[in-house]
């Protein structure tokens, strides 16, 4: 059912990486919204859930932003298809596990998805590669307003948008960026950063991994509080925190290059060799190797044009994607062979690493 999603040549996250964008992989904003006249999804019965889904689906399908988009009834998706959508950040874990009467709209370029009957009636999400809180907010604000023209949303002047969980009350806004922070991780400064931003009501979590470490050095950072501040205030507070983290990351990289240049270049070189030659690669190892390759692009050791390949592989080497492409029912061991093969075929096409550029820097 989801071939169009996985084979799209216009998908934002896998095909549209921002050029010259170290550190920031993508920006996401989501809004939680509910209709005024129906119980929240967890409390609704089957008939109420289906009725609500039908009502919302009708309105959303008519919005210009959803032109040529696709709607999926979650009950009709296989576990594997759900996992693929999850790995592409188009649906949430909660929607994956939901009972019937839930669905998702995904627009043509996969920048917008609207989940129906997740924790709230509607979870609207916009995402874009690179750092673009403002423009993503503008887009989602416009979308939300056109939806409000058609649907009566649960709202109180005191508490704002009413949500199933009070943690989302008020603006219903959760904004996040996906940051690639190898410098802070390698220099053992990530703990400090996490503690510091936690004090500010901001959440940090490792993104990838079935395993224990922050695989791939990719972190998702988002606001925790949604009430008591306007959207503008939330976004500008977040933006300044993101910028500080990005500065720290860049500094950590320079410092590490100064002190451990040979060691870092050796790690990158070996990672490149492994990606070109490995026969078995599990997901964690692949993410960590790809992380070093993204760093290699930042250091101009690989051409900028290959940044998008690496970002695409971050997603396409996730277990669900590997399994989906190989066909259902493939064992974990066989998956690791497929993953290695995919990566070999991609990396053999890249030019040799250019160590001279970095040596000039250092």
């Amino acid at each position, binding site marked *: 059912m989801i071939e169009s999603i996985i084979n799209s040549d216009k998908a934002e996250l896998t095909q549209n990486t921002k050029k010259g964008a170290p550190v920031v992989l993508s920006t996401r904003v989501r809004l939680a919204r*509910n209709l*005024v006249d129906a*119980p*929240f999804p*967890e409390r609704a019965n089957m008939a109420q859930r289906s009725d609500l889904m039908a009502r919302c689906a009708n309105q959303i399908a008519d919005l210009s932003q959803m032109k040529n988009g696709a709607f999926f009834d979650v009950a009709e998706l296989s576990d594997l298809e759900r996992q693929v959508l999850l790995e592409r950040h188009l649906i*949430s*874990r*909660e*929607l994956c596990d939901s009972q019937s009467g839930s669905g998702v709209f995904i627009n043509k370029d996969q920048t917008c998805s609207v989940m129906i009957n*997740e*924790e709230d009636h509607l979870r609207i*999400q916009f995402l874009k590669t690179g750092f673009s809180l403002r423009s993503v907010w503008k887009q989602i*604000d416009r979308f*939300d*307003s056109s939806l*409000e*023209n058609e*649907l009566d*949303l649960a*709202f*109180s*002047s005191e*508490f*704002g*948008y*009413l*949500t*199933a*969980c*009070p*943690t*989302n*009350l*008020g*603006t219903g806004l*959760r904004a*996040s960026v996906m940051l690639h922070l190898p410098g802070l*991780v390698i220099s*053992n400064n990530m*703990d400090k950063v*996490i503690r510091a931003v*936690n*004090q500010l*009501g901001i*959440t*940090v979590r*490792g993104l990838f*991994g*079935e*395993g*224990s*470490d*922050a695989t791939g050095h990719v972190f998702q950072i*988002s606001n*925790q*509080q949604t*009430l*008591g501040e*306007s*959207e503008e205030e939330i976004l500008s507070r977040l933006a300044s925190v993101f910028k500080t983290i990005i500065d720290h990351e860049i500094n950590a990289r320079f410092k590490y290059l100064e002190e451990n240049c040979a060691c870092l270049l050796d790690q990158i070189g070996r990672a490149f060799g492994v990606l070109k030659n490995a026969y078995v690669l599990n997901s964690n190892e692949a993410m960590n190797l790809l992380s070093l390759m993204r760093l290699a692009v930042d250091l101009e050791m690989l051409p900028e044009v290959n940044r998008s390949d690496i970002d695409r592989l971050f997603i396409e080497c996730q277990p669900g994607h590997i399994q989906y492409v190989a066909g259902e029912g493939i064992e974990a061991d066989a998956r690791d062979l497929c993953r290695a093969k995919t990566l070999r075929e991609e990396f053999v096409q890249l030019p040799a690493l250019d160590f001279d550029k970095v040596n000039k820097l250092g």
Partner: protein
Amino acid sequence: MSENLKCSHCNKPATVHLTQIVNNKIIKVDLCESCAQAKGVTDSEGYSLADLLSKTNLTLEKGEARIACPDCGLTTADFRRTGRLGCAACYRSFVTLLQPVLEDMHAGTAHKGKIPKVALSRQTSMAKLNDLENALHRAIAEEAYEDAAKFRDEIQACKKAAEYEAIQS
């Protein structure tokens, strides 16, 4: 990374870090990926810290009033257990219970953000239209035809205004 941050459940290195102030105490939870998954907090978009903490921190306090939402039937105990509300009306039903929770949870307890102006004015004009139609029926039943004519005009005006607004938006 995080070599000194261990999962609070199984001592594996933690990758999920949550902080929240509950009852004026800062609560930090560090979890490994698998424990976080087991607790349903792996998806940062979907997790609710209240869920995670509800079992320990939100149990029904002694002597607390037992309220049930007239719209959806959710009880105080339900809310304490799940940390989630059942419907929009719950926010009215449980307002006294919610206030302190919201104070601890958020930057403030009053909404300062976006207002769905169009939806709100539509709801108000729908309510007004409803009132007028009731008044019209009553007037007709009471054979107060002058009043009925007046209400009919008002209904027309109200409908026209709503249409105009729909075009403008």
